[in-house]
């Protein structure tokens, strides 16, 4: 059984996405909304820069001492009556979780939104084991019914219109076609309420875990995560191993940063601090609590001093919302579970897949992501490091094609030899002549409307400037003589 079913081909899928006008409209309105809400919240937080800096320091510290904190977390959770499991990779994590279910005769599972469970494709594992699993976050529920993957960390179904959802519900749930979001939400509420009350096991993700107290924190708006972690008799939480904050008190700045960056709320509707299973006297809550700590490539990320910072991510989604590339193509184009800038940096580090190493090139290096990231991840630096690793063939022999490598070598050689560079520029000047159109340009400059491949990638939609008849350095020879004192000549 292959451990993932992800298919990554950004070049192809981004092309398809860009042509989809409906998708584009949805993306623009979603990212505009998230951007505006975030900026408003950040402007209203005078301590923002200070807590960002502190959060970054704390994250650095945690990752530098991750072995200590994970052991401490295990100790605290065990003391609180929970059980901690360790999973080296996605398959192992899925096996652990399905085994917990099977040993307890679990027939049905309710799940709240968790990127880590998407990463390990947990639903497939449950289904293979004949266990029913239901996504309960409304967006995830829609996605599950449609048999798709989420397209945004926070709003998994932003690519779907209400019409799509109405049709989906009437087809899959046998209800009449309703179009109002209230009605659709009501249908989902009723269906899922039954699932909650009948489920034997709840699965959640983890936003933060506190070794000091053995507490895990789950952040959400719908209340489904509260229900998943309250009603079923077993609660299993899956956590990427970087999610640690050392002390209980640190949660205040991390919650503040995460929630404001994500949705611009001061606090999300629900934040649950869960410490072990129910206490003996409690009247509700799960009898068992399990935490699965997932490595799945994270220890490899940690080994690289430049890309290590990818592990500081809080999964707030702010970098997606400001990314001009994400805004054009949406989450599915990235082909994996994480998309946008954070996807472009962690997917190639987490998964060894065809096409994954090209994701760092799915960025214009504009740096908008770096500017909003609440833990100051230096995206351009990390993207460039990953590109460089790819070129060096560090990634299991996968590297760019020979023609690109040769072209760069030749280009470099020319740039290292100024006379050759000048000579080539003259050749280019003459070689371009058949392509140059002279109409409609100022300054007597030609424009080039069409060039052969690979330059056609440019000229398909944009004119290319013609190489100048006289380059700047040639003009300089004259300019130099009109020296600075004779300003009036200029």
């Amino acid at each position, binding site marked *: 059984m292959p451990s993932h079913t992800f298919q990554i081909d*950004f*070049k192809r899928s981004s*092309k398809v996405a*860009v042509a989809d006008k409906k998708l*584009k409209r949805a993306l623009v309105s979603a990212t505009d909304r998230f951007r505006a809400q975030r900026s408003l919240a950040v402007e209203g937080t005078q301590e923002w820069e200070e807590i960002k800096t502190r959060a970054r320091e704390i994250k650095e510290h945690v990752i530098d001492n991750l072995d200590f904190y994970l052991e401490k977390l295990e100790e605290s959770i065990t003391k609180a009556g929970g059980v901690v499991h360790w999973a080296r990779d996605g398959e192992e994590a899925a096996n652990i979780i399905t085994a917990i279910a099977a040993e307890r005769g679990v027939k049905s599972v309710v799940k709240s939104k968790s990127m880590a469970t998407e990463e390990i494709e947990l639903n497939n594992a449950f289904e293979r084991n004949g266990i029913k699993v239901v996504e309960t976050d409304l967006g995830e529920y829609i996605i599950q019914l449609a048999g798709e993957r989420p397209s945004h960390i926070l709003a998994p179904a932003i690519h779907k219109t209400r019409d799509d959802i109405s049709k989906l519900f009437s087809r899959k749930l046998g209800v009449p076609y309703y179009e109002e979001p209230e009605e659709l939400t009501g249908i989902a509420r009723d269906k899922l309420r039954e699932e909650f009350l009948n489920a034997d096991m709840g699965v959640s993700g983890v936003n933060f875990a506190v070794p000091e107290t053995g507490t895990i924190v789950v952040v959400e708006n719908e209340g489904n995560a509260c229900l998943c972690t309250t009603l079923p008799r077993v609660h299993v939480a899956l956590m990427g191993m970087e999610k640690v904050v050392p002390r209980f008190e640190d949660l205040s700045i991390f919650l503040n940063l995460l929630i404001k960056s994500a949705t611009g709320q001061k606090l999300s509707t629900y934040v649950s601090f869960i410490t072990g299973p129910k206490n003996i006297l409690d009247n509700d809550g799960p009898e068992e609590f399990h935490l699965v700590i997932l490595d799945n490539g994270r220890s490899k990320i940690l080994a690289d001093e430049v890309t290590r910072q990818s592990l500081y991510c809080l999964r707030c989604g702010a970098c997606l919302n400001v990314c*001009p*590339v994400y*805004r*054009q*193509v949406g989450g599915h184009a990235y082909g994996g579970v994480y998309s946008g800038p954070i996807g472009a940096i962690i997917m190639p580090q987490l998964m060894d897949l065809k096409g994954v190493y090209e994701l760092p*090139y*799915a960025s*214009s*290096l*504009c*740096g*908008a992501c*770096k*500017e909003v990231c609440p833990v100051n991840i230096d995206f*351009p*630096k990390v993207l*460039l490091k990953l*590109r*460089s690793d*790819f070129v*060096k063939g560090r990634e299991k022999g996968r590297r*760019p094609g020979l023609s690109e490598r040769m072209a*760069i*070598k030749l*280009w*470099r050689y*020319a*740039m*290292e030899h100024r006379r050759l560079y000048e000579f080539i*520029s003259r050749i280019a000047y003459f070689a371009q002549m058949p392509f140059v159109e002279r109409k*409609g340009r*100022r*300054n007597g400059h030609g*424009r080039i*409307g069409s060039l052969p491949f690979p*330059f056609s*990638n*440019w000229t*398909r*939609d*944009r*004119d*290319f*400037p013609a190489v*100048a008849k*006289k*380059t*700047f*350095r*040639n*003009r*300089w020879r004259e300019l130099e003589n009109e020296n*600075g004192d004779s*300003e009036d000549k*200029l």
Partner: protein
Amino acid sequence: MSFSVMGNEPGSKRIKASLFVTCLVDLFFPQVGESVVRVLRRLGVDVDFPNEQTCCGQPAFNSGYTDDARALAERFVGVFSGDSRDTYIVSPSGSCASMVKVFYEELFKNDPALCDALSKVSSRVYEFSSFLTDVLGVEDVGASYDGVVTYHDSCHLLRELGISEAPRRLIKSVSGVKFIEAEMHDECCGFGGTFSVKHPEVSVSMLDEKLTHIGKSGADTLVSTDMGCLMQIGGAVSRRELPIRVMHLAELLAS
């Protein structure tokens, strides 16, 4: 001339600047380089052009070819180390300036001698607009232009060098200019170096959005500070024959 603020008083030392013209300007847009020279000279700066310069290595670096980029970076440092210590290095590109000022460090980090040579060079590097406002202390360069101008923030100038006010102040001081902000003026135009040809569809989709906002702003002239962005925006303006003039800040200031 009244607006030549520097070096007019007898005996005062003239400011010297070496032009780091960038390969794009050298090969495709020499008039931008000329405009830079014109503006700087008008302000009394002694301009020189180290002839050995070629490319700073950014295209290779951005594509992941670190070793090739390093070779060109070393070459760059060598070429500009020849200047006297008090010579500024001025470039009409925020992107190329940030390559030297921000990213070279990454390339040289294992070589203390190179780091040392780099720091001597990179501290002298200024992007054109910030050189005018921060070093020369000028906002009004005595230019005049009749038009409604909007400014596109080039990503590297804005986010790597943190410069957004200098070009705006310079534009607003040009007599006859009406300045307006376009919506999303700090959103990437989609150029991104090799990104523009690796992912042309995405790049053009970003560009479409940029052009929509420029169009809606009511400006008749778009000014920016980087030939990459201007080549991208200008390439579509020319293809679609849109009624917008696209120019480098230096060209506006030389007019």
